[in-house]
């Protein structure tokens, strides 16, 4: 697993649902293009991607390839993060908890299509970009067709 230098304020951390929805329409490669501050993953989310691929979710290969090319980087959990993760409500999964924790410490933006995760970001003062906003932006830039946008959101 790769660690990486400190991401900046324009960097984003992607929730698992963002990966799967763009991978299903074969458009994960647009992510590094539209996020110049860099795209990052929480370790638990990456583990889930690997496990999903092993379990037969073939579209996740594109995500693994993006990591292999260094266009999507995996962050490390520090000791201070563990305490915060342990304090988070049990309504969040480990991937979401790690992602929000890393965004809070590193002042990154969490991109998600999950209501509970987005609501918690609001309460915790973590900047969160809704996946629907990202899809709209990709469509405006001609990086997603209307049909791909519809499929990604359904």
């Amino acid at each position: 697993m790769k660690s990486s230098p400190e991401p900046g304020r324009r960097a984003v951390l992607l929730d698992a649902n963002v990966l799967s929805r763009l991978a299903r329409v074969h458009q994960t490669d647009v992510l590094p293009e539209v996020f110049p501050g860099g795209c990052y993953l929480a370790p638990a989310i990456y583990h889930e991607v690997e496990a999903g691929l092993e379990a037969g979710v073939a579209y996740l290969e594109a995500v693994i390839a993006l990591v292999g090319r260094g266009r999507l980087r995996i962050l490390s959990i520090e000791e201070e993060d563990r305490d915060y993760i342990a304090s988070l409500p049990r309504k969040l999964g480990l991937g979401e908890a790690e992602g929000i924790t890393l965004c809070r410490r590193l002042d990154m933006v969490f991109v998600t299509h999950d209501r509970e995760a987005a609501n918690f970001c609001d309460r915790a003062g973590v900047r969160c970009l809704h996946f629907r906003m990202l899809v709209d932006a990709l469509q405006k830039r001609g990086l997603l067709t209307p049909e791909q946008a519809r499929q990604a959101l359904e």
Partner: protein
Amino acid sequence: MNATAFRQEIHQMLDELPAEVLPELVDFIEFLRFRTGRETPGRRVQEAIRSYIAGEISLGRAAELAGVNYFLFEELLRKQGISVMEPEVTDKAEQAAQREIADEVLA
């Protein structure tokens, strides 16, 4: 090996398993039956879906409770025609905040 001999061998293997691993094995078999389309999702999965739809937990937590990989759980919801609980933007201030974040991070 014929079917009867195969079954006997499986029974023998099961007899040798420690009792504490049996609940986990039952969950796994339940999951395999669901994955191969032989059965509707088990109780654990149904409870996770119910909590997710009720807005009590996130998708990641629901997958954990179901004991299913996140992406397989997403597929299951899709196959069952269950709509994703996406973030809500309820007022203009939230819309403006979303646009501001998008402008900041997007190229």
